[in-house]
């Protein structure tokens, strides 16, 4: 019997089958029971209706390091009829795609309202199969089709021998539906009971006592929060003092816009859905000129469109946080698939040169805590600050103790803002020459501190000039801020393990958890590595990184892109050679990809391993995705 340790995958037809309703309910119930929940690869398509959708959920006794591999313990197929995309494979899409990854001794539960699927092969592998006519029961017996997923939920609770008396589930339903009337709660409870009855019938029919998996509540001392990376960024932004956010809908940044639209007004802020990417960026710059902490969020294609304004923010020394939720590019790429392909853009994009800071989150915790830093640094250095995340993080969900959020809620410090009382006479110059490169900033409405700001080259008063010595001086003043940053605020990479004489695994972004997982797996095999993980990428802190890199035996940079963009930065900045393990097929890095790639580098001295093709035990996509 496996207790409190499993990976469950729910699949179905996008929009119609409400796949995430099931995982959302289960996630909350498991979390409320003190278990750890991680849902890091939300599979959805850029079409709206009809494509295959899946949502894996890892449940465990202690916080899982990562979502592990493509292996599944329990597979739930919600389709109840022919996949509208395919007339040849009725009711089998989820099973065909994910059945191959079911572990031996695993469980398949599927809706057989339309027909019973041939599952002999799976059963031969020791997999217990539960056909459940959920839609038929919902329609014919309960007369309410939407309850079909509650029937499945009830079945799963029974399979996992969890919350059998519906204490947690009942409370969940009341919280969600009581405002619509007791009847709605009751019919859902009834639906859950039908699911349970169906499972019991199959169990006893096969003479099975249980399915081999059980979840047991673990009392937890404090409340937990279950949220996505985007929700963590958005909440962090509000708590970090952001009061103006604008965005133009784009996957996967949209949910930041949606969250802030609901919550920002409560804190006196405003959200703008711009009419396009550039209007969003310009409005955020305008609000920032007015003194408000402001941010824009977008993904690759939208960031590309904002680049002209990025240069402007740099040249005008306007603080601005730019959240780039990376998705697979180039061009429109794969809007619902993850990649770490925008690093070079964040670091180098734009004509001319501007001061800019690039931060990158690797976990949902960092989505939250780096938001505070991003707004603080933008304010202090009066320049654009990128906060990078990627689709794996933006849509991934994880529970974290509430105390994590309160403990990491940093006080808000406004840097260098000039108050009316600070200014005397007409002496105020917006771009005053300072040693740090940071000039006192006045905001609109401050008497006697009227500013002139221009993206066209200007002198310290803000008025336009092409005088060579003035241009040189103002350019150097602007860029000097980055030296100040390197001295005062740059952070070294995080280090896991001792770098002395071992291969260094180097990473950034959402690969952090699988990297830690892979490191543990390699260690178990006797391969010792040290993980060097970057959150503060630009300006590149050479002085903090170089001594670390010198200690390792070789550098293996693991990234989810084609070229190895961080590897290039490291080579260029530290003048060292890097090897690369890369993946860019749209699926996240699995532990096996990394471990396999590293083994290959170590064994053959391979310089570049492109995982998904060469790595021996990598999870290779064989079923083509319809999206």
């Amino acid at each position: 019997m496996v207790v409190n340790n499993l990976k469950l995958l729910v699949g179905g037809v996008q929009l119609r089958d409400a796949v995430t309703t099931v995982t959302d309910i289960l996630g909350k119930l498991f979390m409320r029971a003190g278990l750890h929940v991680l849902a890091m690869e939300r599979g959805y398509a850029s079409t709206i209706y009809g494509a295959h959708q899946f949502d894996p959920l890892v449940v465990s006794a202690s916080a899982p390091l990562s979502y592990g591999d493509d292996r599944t313990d329990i597979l739930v197929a919600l389709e109840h009829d022919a996949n509208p995309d395919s007339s040849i494979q009725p009711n089998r899409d989820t099973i065909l795609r994910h059945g191959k990854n079911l572990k031996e001794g695993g469980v398949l539960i599927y809706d057989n309202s339309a027909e019973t699927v041939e599952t002999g092969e799976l059963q031969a592998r020791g997999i217990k199969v539960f056909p459940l006519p959920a839609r038929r029961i919902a329609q014919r017996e309960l007369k309410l089709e939407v309850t079909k997923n509650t029937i499945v939920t009830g079945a799963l609770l029974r399979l996992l021998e969890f919350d059998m008396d519906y204490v947690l589930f009942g409370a969940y339903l009341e919280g969600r539906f009581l405002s619509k009337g007791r009847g709605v709660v009751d019919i859902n409870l009834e639906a859950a009971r039908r699911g349970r009855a169906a499972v019991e019938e199959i169990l006893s029919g096969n003479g099975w006592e249980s399915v081999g998996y059980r979840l047991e509540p673990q009392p937890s001392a404090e409340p937990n929060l279950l949220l996505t990376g985007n929700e963590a960024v958005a909440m962090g932004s509000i708590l970090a003092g952001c009061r103006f956010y604008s965005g133009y809908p784009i996957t996967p940044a949209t949910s930041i816009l949606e969250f802030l639209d609901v919550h920002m007004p409560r804190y006196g802020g405003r959200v703008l859905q711009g009419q396009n990417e550039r209007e969003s960026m310009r409005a955020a710059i305008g609000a920032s000129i007015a003194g408000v902490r402001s941010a824009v969020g977008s993904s690759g294609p939208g960031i590309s469109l904002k680049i002209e304004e990025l240069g402007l923010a740099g040249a005008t020394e306007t603080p601005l946080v730019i959240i780039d939720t990376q998705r697979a590019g180039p061009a429109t790429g794969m809007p619902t698939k993850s990649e770490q392909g925008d690093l070079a853009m964040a670091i180098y994009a734009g004509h001319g040169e501007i001061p800019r800071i690039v931060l990158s989150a690797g976990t949902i915790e960092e989505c939250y805590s780096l938001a505070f830093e991003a707004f603080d640094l933008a304010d202090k250095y009066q320049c654009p600050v990128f906060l990078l995340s990627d689709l794996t993080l933006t849509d991934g969900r994880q529970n974290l103790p509430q105390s994590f959020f309160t403990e990491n809620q940093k006080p808000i410090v406004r840097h260098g803002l000039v108050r009316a009382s600070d200014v005397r006479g007409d002496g105020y110059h917006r771009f005053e020459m300072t040693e740090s490169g940071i000039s006192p900033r006045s905001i609109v409405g401050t008497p006697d501190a009227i500013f002139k700001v221009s993206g066209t080259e200007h002198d310290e008063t803000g008025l336009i000039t092409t005088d060579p010595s003035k241009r040189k001086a103002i350019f150097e003043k602007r860029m000097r801020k980055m030296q100040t940053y390197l001295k005062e605020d740059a952070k070294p990479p995080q280090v896991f393990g001792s770098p002395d004489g071992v291969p260094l695994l180097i990473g950034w972004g959402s690969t952090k958890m699988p990297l830690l997982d892979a490191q543990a797996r390699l260690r178990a095999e006797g391969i010792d590595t040290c993980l060097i993980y970057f959150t503060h990428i630009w300006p590149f802190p050479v002085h903090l990184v170089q001594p670390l890199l010198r200690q390792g035996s070789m550098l293996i940079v693991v990234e989810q892109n084609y070229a190895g963009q961080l590897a290039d930065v490291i080579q260029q900045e530290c003048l060292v050679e890097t090897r690369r393990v890369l993946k860019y097929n749209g699926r996240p890095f699995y532990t096996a990809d990394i471990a396999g790639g590293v083994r290959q580098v170590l064994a053959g001295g391979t310089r570049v391993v492109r995982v998904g093709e060469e790595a021996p035990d990598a999870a290779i996509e064989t079923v083509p995705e319809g999206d």
Partner: protein
Amino acid sequence: MSAASPETARLWEKNAFPRHRIQWCPGCGDFGVLAALKTALVRIGVSPHEVLLVGGIGCSGQTRNYLNGNGFHGTHGGPLGYALGAKMAVPDLTVIALAGDGDTLAIGMESFIHVCRRDPAMTLIMMNNGVYGLTRGQDSPTTGLGQIMEEHTEEHPPFVDPARLAITAGATFVAQSFSGDPKHCAEIYAQAFRHPGFAMVNDFSPCVTYNKFNTSGWYREHSEHIPDGHDASDKAAAWALLDDFDRRGKLPLGVIYRAPRHKKAHARLPVWEEELAGIDPEPMFSVFR
């Protein structure tokens, strides 16, 4: 906003940056706009620190540098975007965008249409010279005003009429003025600044260097003040005025269209540490439990 006072007049007269040399060609229409702006700002009684002047990229965009008041100068096509954000942040700020016809109607067209729809309480003075001045005389979207075009080609499409466009897009204050008549301009600007919605002033401001057709003389001949008795709240009447140009060749100067506007008041967005302190995360936490 109070009424004109000698004190505000003094503040506006005082050039914040007297070292700045005016870089327009002698005789450029934009001088008239500058003079009228100062008069109008004094008339509505705002102090320079209560004003944000957002300049476009072009000769016209320089205006903000030649008088007192906060000034921001961004990208070509950008002024209305920055202005919108600043206005949303500080609702009682007097926000004035000063941009060219190329800036507004070519590269900035996307902003123009949507700002008309949003109708924020700010003003655009579009300094319309019918050409690109700063880049030395290329066609702008308003090139060809009053010219008889034998046939339109792909290279020379008919001119855009900003007033018609603004009314169509939803602007609630649409006016025209001629910078050769700064007294009248000042009157129109002052009304625009006081309008509680988006005010678009299409200001004919001749480029003496590159537009040899729409000269001051041409504008004088081809424009007239809107007759007393025009009901600006009547959209059909506004349209008739604009159609009149096609019939009689006279551009109407004055307020063409004005719709009553009732905007929900917004508070200024929080800026200072003390306004941002003591935030309660509970309403957000509760969503995730």
